[in-house]
């Protein structure tokens, strides 16, 4: 049985690790502090992220930098319409064994890395996109009837461009639901833009320092799940998720935009993500328990991609962020 001091120390360590990671990332990435925190939360919670932003905002650089600071293997897959599932999972190749016999040997695809950047995932065909399903959910791939375990920790960071919709294949709902977070990259501010110019046109910065390794991440994943959650806070999260369901309006007391523009609300995976992410945030904040603020601050990244809006929402220009913001305002912390 661990003592109070030991537990306190490990939480302090988690906080320090995160502070170190943030500092290292800041050397390479300008701005996006909140985004980096949320990516790290997803990592320590064992989730995958869908990054959405226009080209040139540093998505790839951020993922690469994350891999460097965490001392994790990194691979990048550029999704194109002609990309086949075997191209990402790997395939059995006919080779000679040492005795000269012809055998099939599994050649691991780019999925076999700790951090996989699935760049422009919506450009691949649904068939290829589906190849990611098993990898993301089961953390394994099956080729030729044989299951191959992926790296642990394993994290997919997929990106998609919201403006170039020509020749793209929108991700199926089932796949979108498997992303722990959907993160939006905002265009940098004036000061940030100036800082980006300085950083990228001068001498490249020195190599990033490793602040955490794979075993450390796995250890943190275990700690995250030990963070206590009060029933009253859990109930708040449950009511928030229920509030996204228009057909359950009477039960949760929400109304307004969700009632009008949402076709289907968040799945139970949304609640799981929300609570687990809140625990991760509490841990990274050096706090041993989840607060209402943890839940509230992670509502958008956890649920925004899980709401299916109706055509009226498209016509009115209402998006999931607007609806979730209203839900967060309407649902009281304690009923």
């Amino acid at each position, binding site marked *: 049985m661990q003592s*109070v001091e030991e*537990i306190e120390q490990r*939480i302090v360590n988690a906080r320090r690790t995160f502070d170190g990671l943030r500092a290292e990332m800041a050397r390479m990435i300008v701005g996006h502090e909140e985004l980096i925190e949320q990516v790290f939360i997803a990592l320590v919670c064992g989730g995958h992220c869908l990054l959405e932003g226009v080209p040139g905002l540093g998505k790839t650089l951020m993922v690469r930098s994350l891999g460097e600071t965490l001392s994790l293997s990194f691979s990048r897959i550029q999704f194109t319409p002609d990309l086949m599932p075997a191209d990402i999972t790997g395939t059995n190749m006919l080779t000679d064994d040492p005795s000269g016999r012809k055998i099939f040997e599994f050649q691991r695809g780019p999925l076999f890395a700790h951090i996989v950047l699935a760049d422009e995932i919506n450009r691949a065909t649904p068939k290829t996109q589906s190849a990611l399903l098993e990898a993301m959910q089961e953390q394994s791939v099956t080729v030729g009837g044989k299951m191959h375990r992926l790296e642990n920790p394993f994290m997919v960071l997929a990106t998609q461009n919201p403006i170039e919709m020509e020749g793209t294949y929108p991700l199926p709902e089932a796949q979108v639901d498997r992303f722990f977070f959907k993160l939006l990259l905002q265009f940098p501010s004036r000061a940030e833009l100036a800082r980006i110019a300085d950083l990228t046109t001068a001498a490249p910065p020195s190599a990033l320092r490793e602040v955490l390794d794979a075993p450390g991440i796995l250890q943190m994943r275990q700690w995250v799940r030990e963070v*206590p959650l009060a029933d*009253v*806070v859990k109930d708040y999260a449950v009511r928030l998720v229920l509030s996204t369901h228009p057909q359950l309006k009477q039960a949760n007391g929400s109304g307004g935009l969700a009632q009008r523009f949402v076709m289907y609300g968040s799945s139970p995976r949304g609640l799981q993500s929300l609570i687990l992410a809140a625990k991760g945030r509490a841990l990274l904040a050096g*706090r041993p*328990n989840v607060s*209402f603020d943890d839940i509230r601050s992670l509502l958008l990244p956890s649920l925004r991609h899980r709401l299916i809006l109706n055509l009226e929402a498209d016509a009115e220009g209402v998006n999931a962020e607007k609806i979730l913001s209203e839900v967060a305002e309407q649902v009281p912390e304690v009923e």
Partner: protein
Amino acid sequence: MENLEAKFAGLLHWERRKRREQTLLAVSCYAAALAIILSPFDIYLPNPWLRWLAPVALFFSLAPWFLHRARWRLGDSARALVKLDKTLGLEERAVTAWELSTRKETQGAALLVLHQAEERLRSLEPRAVSPRRWNWPAYAALPLLALWFMLLWFDFDRGDEQARYGGPPTLAHRLREYSRELQEKAKNEGLRETLNLSRELEKTAQKNIEAKSADESVKKELAGAAGKFAAAAQSSAEKSSFSNGASEQSLKDLKAEIEATRDLLQLPEPAQANQETGQRWMERLAAMPQLKRQFENSEGGGQGLGQKELKSFLDKLEQQVTGELDRRSLIDAQQYLEQLMKQGQGAKGENYARSGAPGEQDPSAEGAREKNPNSLPGKEPGKQDQDSGSLSELRPGASTQVKGLLGEGESSALDFKGKPTAGKSAVPQAEITASYRRQAEQELNSERVPDALKETIRNYFLSLGEVKSK
């Protein structure tokens, strides 16, 4: 851990107490408001003093329901601890620690949460962290209670207490009613002294009603008032030329005859008849027995009086009659006041109980006068009416008329059948003629008789007496 649980228990106990206080204050507020709203229905209470208990009764009626509705639930404890977290910036450590302590979880990070919560709540003082906050019912309760108290204190809810309550009227109320009746009578009959003193009496009664004086103190003032009436009666007696033997009815008859005579004096007389005026008056006087008696008692028996002398004589006579009626009215009032003074509480209650339901009868008309109907205004003091009390056995020749005043409400009548007894009428013809003439005068004075016919009618009734005298 135990210390933390004690802290939580202390905090929740304080919050429960605040909830109870607020609930009870809200109940007080609603009870006071309801008491004000329901105060017009106080009259239906069996006893008037019960109205002072209305807020208390409402409070105890409402309190169980309110307390049940605002009972402390588990969610309230969580809410109180969340509020504590917000107040102290504990980021839900307190509520998490409270739940962990109730679940007896003491492992892993739970232990750290409990430890941190215990450290931060070590100096927790519930009263300081979560002081009482009064809501609007708390502020409204006292003003509403004060308003209710003022309304009751100033009898806003009762209006005329006697009319609305079944309880006995106070002495002051009865005195006021009597003084008003007396004033009415004095105005009708032109009794100046009685009118003045009855007005004073009403002022005295009103003053005592407003001051809510006790009956005993009113009695002291009654003694003074009775003395005034006695003094005024004594003063009138010295001027009066009528003997006590003259009945009040005969005085009233005399007054009516004087009025009738005045009307006759205003009729135009033929010029040749001026010399015969005295003789003619004497003939007409035959139909006016009371006036005739006065003429006979006067110097010269009223012979040879001219019109002016006759008027002068009638003025003087009327003044004397009115003075005598005034005196008797004063004595009547004095006796009534003395009886009021002698009356005890028991008699009052008994009298009032006999008066029936409120509104059916004027309760102030009861009381002492019921005991002694001769004390009623208009009755001759000290003289017992033979027909008062229980009805006597009907016998031939006896009056079959039950005397009494007709008032509002239901009435009943009895018809008696019997053989007429042969013999002379007990009522003299002269009295009947005079009575008819009085009625005729009254009718002539009303609008129901056309002016053109008044003189004809008057002459007819006067002719009745003339025929008899011839």
